[in-house]
């Protein structure tokens, strides 16, 4: 099937997660993504097996899935000969993407000025930690940056520790922002003929993860948006999390009389709708904790599936709160290819992987191959794409520019 980004060549000088997942989106839709890695060890993401913070299976699912559909080229950028190869690749590429420290890029003479001089049509994209302007320069891992945004401090019950949104949650958003920035620049290039510098930082992207509450806080200064809120103090008790006998549920019902009456009936508790404490939207809000307690007691009486069965025909919006095992088997996720199966060379069997979160009707993305072996495409790219002779390639090897 046709690929939307066929013909777009991306130099991917990225490590860990945010950068790689950005170019993964481009690769899924058919861009030729060439991952440039240091000859020894390559991307640090290849080495997570030894790091206890990241659980890894019998195949390295962390590295192989975010680097799927990519080629790998091993280059020693600390050597002039290695950089010269990269410069030749820049001439023939549309996008250069990096999430290395800006100081590294400058030290290796891979800054925007240099590369755009070689190829003025180049889109030069970085993923900085805290933005391309300003004085802040410190390590920028996902969770330590999330800590600064205010996202974590507002989650959880009052007095409980702050809550991290999940492994790589901020990087994932940064990767999307970066891919969007690159596509915007490619769009503009069709008209102007010029590339440009694009940056999407981890901090900037994570601030947008909080948009629904951060924007309200910025405008009002109301601490309600930035502090932990008790579940029992939900401002609309009908829009809340409740524990059924076997499992938690999310109930999402607007606070109006008709809907409340329907709900009470479905609970075999029509008397509740007539209770003067709960007789209007305002009273249900004001006496919220009391209503939450009443609903807690009622809903605990049956399994989640029973409540769902009663609610579905009545149009009461609700969902059981699934765990990872449930979602891994959720037909909705599979039918939309949010999960797909693909072959994994490392263990020589079919494995389940994150699929394609954006669905395009005529040029859908696909998972063709999992992440490449370190440097597996080096010689082929040198010969076919860059036109080096085999003698020259031999010489580059002897000089240590390539392994």
């Amino acid at each position: 099937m046709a690929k939307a980004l066929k013909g777009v060549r991306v130099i991917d000088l990225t490590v860990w997660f945010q950068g790689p997942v950005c170019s993964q989106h481009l690769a899924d839709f058919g861009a030729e993504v060439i991952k440039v890695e240091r000859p020894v060890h390559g991307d640090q993401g290849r080495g997570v097996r030894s790091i206890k913070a990241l659980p890894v299976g019998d195949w390295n699912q962390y590295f192989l899935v975010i680097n799927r559909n990519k080629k790998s080229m091993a280059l020693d950028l600390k050597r002039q000969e290695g950089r010269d190869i990269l410069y030749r690749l820049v001439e023939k590429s549309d996008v250069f993407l990096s999430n290395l420290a800006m100081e590294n890029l400058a030290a290796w003479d891979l800054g925007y000025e240099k590369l755009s001089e070689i190829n003025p049509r180049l889109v030069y994209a970085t993923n900085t930690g805290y933005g391309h302007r300003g004085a802040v320069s410190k390590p920028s891992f996902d969770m330590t940056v999330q800590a600064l945004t205010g996202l974590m401090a507002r989650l959880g019950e009052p007095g409980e520790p702050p809550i991290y949104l999940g492994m790589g949650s901020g990087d994932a958003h940064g990767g999307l922002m970066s891919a969007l920035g690159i596509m915007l620049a490619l769009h503009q290039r069709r008209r102007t003929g010029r590339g440009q510098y694009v940056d999407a930082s981890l901090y900037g992207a994570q601030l947008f993860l909080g948009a629904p509450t951060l924007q309200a806080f910025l405008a009002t200064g109301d601490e309600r948006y930035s502090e932990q809120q008790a579940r029992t103090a939900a401002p609309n008790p009908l829009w809340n999390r409740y524990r059924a006998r076997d499992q938690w549920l999310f109930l999402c019902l607007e606070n109006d009389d008709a809907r409340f009456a329907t709900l009470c009936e479905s609970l075999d508790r029509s008397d509740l709708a007539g209770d003067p404490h709960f007789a209007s939207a305002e009273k249900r809000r004001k006496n919220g904790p009391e209503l939450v307690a009443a609903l807690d007691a009622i809903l605990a009486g049956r399994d989640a599936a029973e409540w769902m069965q009663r609610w579905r025909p009545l149009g009461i919006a609700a969902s059981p709160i699934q765990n990872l095992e449930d979602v891994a088997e959720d037909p909705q996720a599979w039918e939309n290819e949010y999960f797909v199966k693909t072959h994994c060379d490392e263990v020589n069997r079919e494995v389940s992987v994150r699929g394609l979160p954006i669905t395009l009707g005529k040029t859908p993305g696909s998972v063709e191959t999992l992440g490449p072996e370190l440097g597996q495409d080096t010689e082929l790219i040198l010969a076919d794409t860059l036109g080096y002779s085999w003698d020259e390639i031999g010489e580059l090897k002897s000089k240590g520019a390539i392994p």
Partner: protein
Amino acid sequence: MSRVLEDLLVLDLTTEFWSGLASAMLGDFGARVIRVESLAAGEGGDANRDGQHPPTDWNYLADLAQRNKRGLAVDLGEEAGREILRALAARADVFLTDLPAARLAELGCDYSALSAARPDLVYARGSGFGPRGPDRDLPALDELAAARTGMMPILPQPGQPPVYTGSGQMYTTVMLALGILIALHHRADTGEGQEVDASLFAGNMYGASLDLQAYLAMGGERFLQPESRLDKGNPMSGTVYPSRDGRWVTLTMPDTDRWWPSFAEVVGLDVADPRFDDHEKRCGEHRLEMMRVLEAAFRKHPGAHWRQRFDEKQLSADVIEAYSYPAGDEQAHRNRYLVDLEHPSLGPLKSLGFPIHMSDGTARLDRLAPCRGQHSAEILQELLEYPDEKIFELEAEGVIA
């Protein structure tokens, strides 16, 4: 200077914050975005249905999600109103909606109808659960999608209620904008338009990428139960500890050997302490003991002390802040992630700004959210070349406002 998307006309028929924000992001970069608001009863979403956003506060959210758009108000309950919508769609490059599929069919605005008139249209829909599958018509509510994703039960500490973050929808916002740009790229190459779908379910799942993928690769009970913060796999990574003034400290130093010498010094431990002197001991046999030791160590000084020490040693560690921190953070303002603006009726305000920097195509705030129907007449004149009499007539009949 040329704007990135100045050649694009986007017709936005959305009712929600997350979907509206997708086209605002296109508007930030110069796309001409028309927000269509329906005058029909019961259409247009209820911004305060969860009780979290009283109507006054909702305006601020609208000023973000509807910024850089012009507004057209039209009665989609009337055929004359639907005709206007379809006529505009025939002029648009991008149609963006979050309405249910059945409603779009009623409006004559499903993909087959609109693409018949405009084959190169990029037709984007923000859905709840994707274009296929048994639950494709469930309501597009972030809460329902978050509940399905599997993360809510494991985010909090053991024994605590499941946690709803509200952030899942924000991935969907950017996925919608990205999907549109990818489809436009294909259109520019081939002249072919197509449908784009990004769902809240996909957005929530994508935000949980690494946890989901770890479960898919390994399975097992340990991914289904919340972890206690004092029983993490690595005492120096993914953990939080309280400091003396109650502010929390967080550490991300997964490759502990690299950080250990300076980290040990900062927390007042002996680098050669035989319990903790290599990665295997720190993450293995002495893991729980190390967490207890760190718990006690961090309680000795307030948060500000720890931030300063982390900074001096360039450790990957920080203090957990509330929203007041970015609100006053110069770094956030210098990079225009947050902007100060002068609101015509509310005075000086802070707002979220622009998460993407482009050297040649800078994002900017040209206008705040339009009032309902603020540009109805001007849009019909400009894009459909309706004469004044026809516009007066439509106004008089209540088809537009």
